[in-house]
């Protein structure tokens, strides 16, 4: 029997196994190889909620999905074409993600009596047999046995050999999608440079998996996915949290001032602390504080001293920081506050994504407390957005909230990375020393952008006191004067709104500048909306997309753009937060589409929803 070679435009693969099976590594290796092959791609890791759930249970299943293609890819794929399962629990947890008629590559050794029991299948169950009757193609492979045979001569123990099972499976999938083994072989030899025996065992398992795919005729079809038409340039693969770390580091370097990160560990933001802790040679201090409040207040102390203050957390931590955010706002010191949102309220679902902290970011403080809010749209965009957040914070002496989420923080995509000379300059100037003959220094005088001077300790003649108590215009002295308070409240608001002067105007992401339906998104829903709208545009519908990165203040032309459409549809992974801001500020009768399930929108559900508002097909719901 010969194997049919089929060319595919896109494909989605999901790797799933026990937490100890190395599925994240397998997925990230497939991702790198796919990127190097020139595909566009998007990925979604699916971590178990528990740190170490009992092995073999559904709670302990870890997954990784990659969507790649020869066309532009913006989302990690609703459903997968191929599901790799290392045990019964992985099948149970993930069969819902497999397209009907999809392929299951199953490690049959993970379907023994004990595994079935741990996965809570009945004692007589035959899950693989069952799914094969439901139209799925099951490819059973005894991965454990094959890997042990493959590495019989390696001199490693069975326990050590079994750790290479994931490489054997990866080899099979590489064969199935006609991929080169080269990138992963290089990776293994670098990763295990100090232990060549382990490196070569993994390489052999990978190669034998590939050969196994070719030789055993277990597949009737083999696929190839050609390179995508991607903007020319140099690319690398990047997750959102990595991009944020690099963006912060770049801002520290380009601004020429020290950076101070005060942080307290919290899922899913901790990787920013981990990443920045390795950047000390860029004049960056990272400080793991005793709590969320100390994390932000230490950054404020550093900002008073002339550092760019940064703090990173997730929603519950941001709640603890709110009083300090207000302090930084009335101080008018530069501060970047990172919120990698997760599903709430309270502890909620820490490993799952959500967009429900927008109103917290814009309004969630005591008193009139305007800050700038910037939200990245994709993993790579975390770089640009956080770099911009640093630029705004320092140039406007204002706290800036960077509103990422768990989905883009951990998801990865190819990034056409910039060179340093392509980065916008960050203009920072500390106030100059004064002599005894100069008139007294006034720390709250302002420039044309309403920005006060950054007067740092150690500068002669600028000795001054700042506090959380309302301050008199210009002098900064304590003031309880009613008119002064009203003036200062407006001043802080006006200064925040002045930031809009330097922001780019909203441009159409997809479609025409007027028409039936405008889909408005913010944050991590970008990919799903883009994919849905672009497909509808291709199908000839009157639908457009804009994506709002700047949520406070909004871009200056937003109102005008919104009013050019019959229907404004706002999908959000919350109960309707951006829609409140839009209705409030522009009187636009927008319609919300809200699902709060802890997972990104599926492209198909968005398409179906948008279609409901299109006049072209006559359906109005």
């Amino acid at each position, binding site marked *: 029997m010969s194997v049919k070679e089929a060319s595919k435009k896109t494909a989605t693969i999901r790797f799933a196994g026990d937490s100890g099976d190395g599925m994240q590594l397998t997925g990230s290796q497939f991702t*790198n190889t796919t*990127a190097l092959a*020139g595909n566009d791609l998007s990925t979604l890791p699916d971590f178990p909620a528990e740190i170490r759930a009992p092995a073999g249970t559904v709670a302990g299943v870890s997954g990784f999905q990659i969507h790649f293609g020869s066309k532009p890819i913006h989302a990690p794929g609703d459903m997968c074409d191929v599901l790799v399962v290392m045990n019964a629990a992985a099948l149970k947890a993930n069969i819902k993600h497999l397209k009907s008629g999809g392929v299951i590559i199953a490690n049959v050794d993970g379907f023994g009596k004990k595994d079935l029991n741990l996965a809570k299948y009945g004692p007589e169950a035959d899950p693989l047999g069952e799914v094969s009757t439901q139209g799925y193609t099951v490819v059973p492979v005894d991965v454990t046995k094959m890997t042990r045979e493959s590495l019989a001569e390696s001199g490693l123990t069975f326990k050590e050999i079994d750790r290479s099972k994931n490489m054997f499976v990866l080899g099979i999938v590489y064969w199935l999608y006609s991929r080169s083994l080269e990138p992963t072989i290089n990776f293994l030899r670098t990763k295990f440079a100090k232990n060549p025996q382990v490196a070569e065992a993994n390489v052999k398992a990978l190669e034998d998996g590939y050969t196994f795919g070719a030789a055993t005729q277990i597949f009737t079809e083999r696929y190839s996915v050609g*390179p995508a038409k*991607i*903007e*020319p*340039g*140099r*690319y*690398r693969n*990047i997750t959102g949290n990595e991009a944020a770390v690099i963006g912060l*580091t*770049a801002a520290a*370097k*380009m601004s020429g001032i*020290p950076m*101070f990160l*005060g942080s307290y560990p919290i899922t899913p933001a901790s990787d920013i602390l981990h990443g920045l802790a390795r*950047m*000390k*040679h*860029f*004049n960056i*201090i990272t*400080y793991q*504080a*005793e709590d969320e*409040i*100390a994390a932000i*207040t*230490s*950054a*404020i*102390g*550093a900002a*008073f*001293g*002339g*550092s760019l*203050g940064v703090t990173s957390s997730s929603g519950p931590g941001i709640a603890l920081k709110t009083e*300090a955010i207000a*302090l930084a706002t009335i101080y008018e010191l530069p501060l970047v506050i990172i919120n990698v949102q997760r599903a709430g309220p309270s502890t909620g679902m820490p490993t799952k994504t959500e967009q429900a902290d927008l109103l917290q970011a814009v309004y969630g403080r005591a008193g009139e407390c305007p800050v700038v809010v910037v939200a990245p749209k994709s993993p790579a965009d975390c770089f640009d957005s956080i770099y911009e957040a640093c630029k705004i914070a320092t140039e406007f002496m204002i706290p800036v909230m960077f509103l990422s989420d768990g989905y883009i923080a951990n998801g990865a995509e190819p990034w*056409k*990375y*910039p*060179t*340093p000379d392509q980065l916008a300059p960050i203009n920072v100037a500390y106030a100059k020393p004064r002599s005894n003959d100069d008139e007294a220094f006034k720390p709250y005088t302002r420039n044309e952008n309403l920005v006060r001077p950054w007067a740092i*300790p*150690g500068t*002669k*003649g*600028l*000795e001054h*006191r*700042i*506090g*959380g*108590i309302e301050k008199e215009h210009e002098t900064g002295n*304590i003031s309880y004067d009613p008119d002064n308070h009203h003036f200062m409240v407006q001043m802080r608001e006006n200064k925040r709104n002045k930031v809009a002067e330097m922001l780019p105007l909203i441009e159409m992401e997809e479609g025409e500048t007027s028409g039936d339906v405008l889909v408005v998104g913010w944050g991590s829903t970008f990919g799903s909306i883009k994919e849905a709208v672009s497909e509808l545009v291709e199908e000839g519908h009157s639908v457009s997309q804009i994506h709002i990165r700047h949520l406070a203040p909004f871009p200056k032309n937003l109102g005008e753009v919104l009013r050019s459409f019959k229907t404004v549809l706002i999908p959000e992974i919350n109960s309707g937060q951006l829609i409140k801001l839009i209705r409030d500020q522009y009187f636009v009768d927008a319609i919300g589409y809200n699902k709060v399930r802890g997972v990104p929108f599926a492209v198909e559900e968005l398409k179906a929803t948008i279609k409901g508002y299109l006049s072209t097909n006559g359906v109005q719901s």
Partner: protein
Amino acid sequence: MKSNELEVLTGKDFSSDQDVRWCPGCGDYTILKQVQNVMPELGIPKENIVFVAGIGCSSRFPYYMNTYGMHTIHGRAPAIASGLKISRPDLSVWMITGDGDSLSIGGNHLIHVLRRNVDINILLFNNEIYGLTKGQYSPTSKEGTKTKSTPYGSLDHPFNPLSLALGADSGFVARAMDRDPKHLNTVLHRAASHKGTSFVEIYQNCIVFNDGAFDLYTDKVSRPESALYLEQGQPLIFGADSSKGVRLDGMRPEIVDLNNGYSAEDLWIHDEHDHMKAYILSRFFAVGNEDGFPRPFGVLFEQNRPPYEELVREQMAYALKKNGAPDLEALLSGDETWVVG
């Protein structure tokens, strides 16, 4: 004047143009005066000094100092001062706080700054009451204290601030009082010269809500019998006619009569570097000295270990040596890249 020469300043130069707004007779005035007196004697340029405070009566302090200053939020001064000092080791950072600010709402930050040993001089004005909020009991109020929020008496067991500081491994622990400005002056000098966190508890009289709380120690008549002034290398002697001493029987302290069979040679010799003995001294803490032991004033403990900010700088220097000069271009590209088109 050459720019590298230090201007000759006086206490007055450290007084800001703001009106001081504490109640008349408040103990804070004498402390402010002594701090202003000490500043010019430290040899530090005025612009390199920062006062950081939390919230409370004492925390208004920075507004009255003609240096850099931060009036912050309740309890958070240790964290703000830590961020400032770690990022700017060149600055002399002073933290002003009260018993509510740093032992109640800010208790967490206080113990952590002490264990990290950031080089900050912490002056805790202890008046055993909440003043700014008009008279509720504080975490140092004695059991049974009747206040607006405890009309039937407080049930809380109070903190012993010095035992707490020693327990958090503070490298410098001292006690002073507002009504002995000369002694306060010497303790402030000691705190300033100590590298690492200095923790100074200052008994401060709140004339409105807790007047006389420390009379036993501050009153010139009762002081000799109730206060024990510590001096390095000197025997522990107190009493109106210096007739009483503290002797150590193993680890058990006892009061002995120097007129009755004991001499100075028999006494406990104060050793600031002995953590165990410092802890025993901190336990001389009975309400009204009911156990007979006098309340110690002065430096209970001093130990030199590297300040946190120095360790941070060392690690940054190591990272620079290990990684070489920062290369933004290499960071942007990472290890694995590919070219399209």
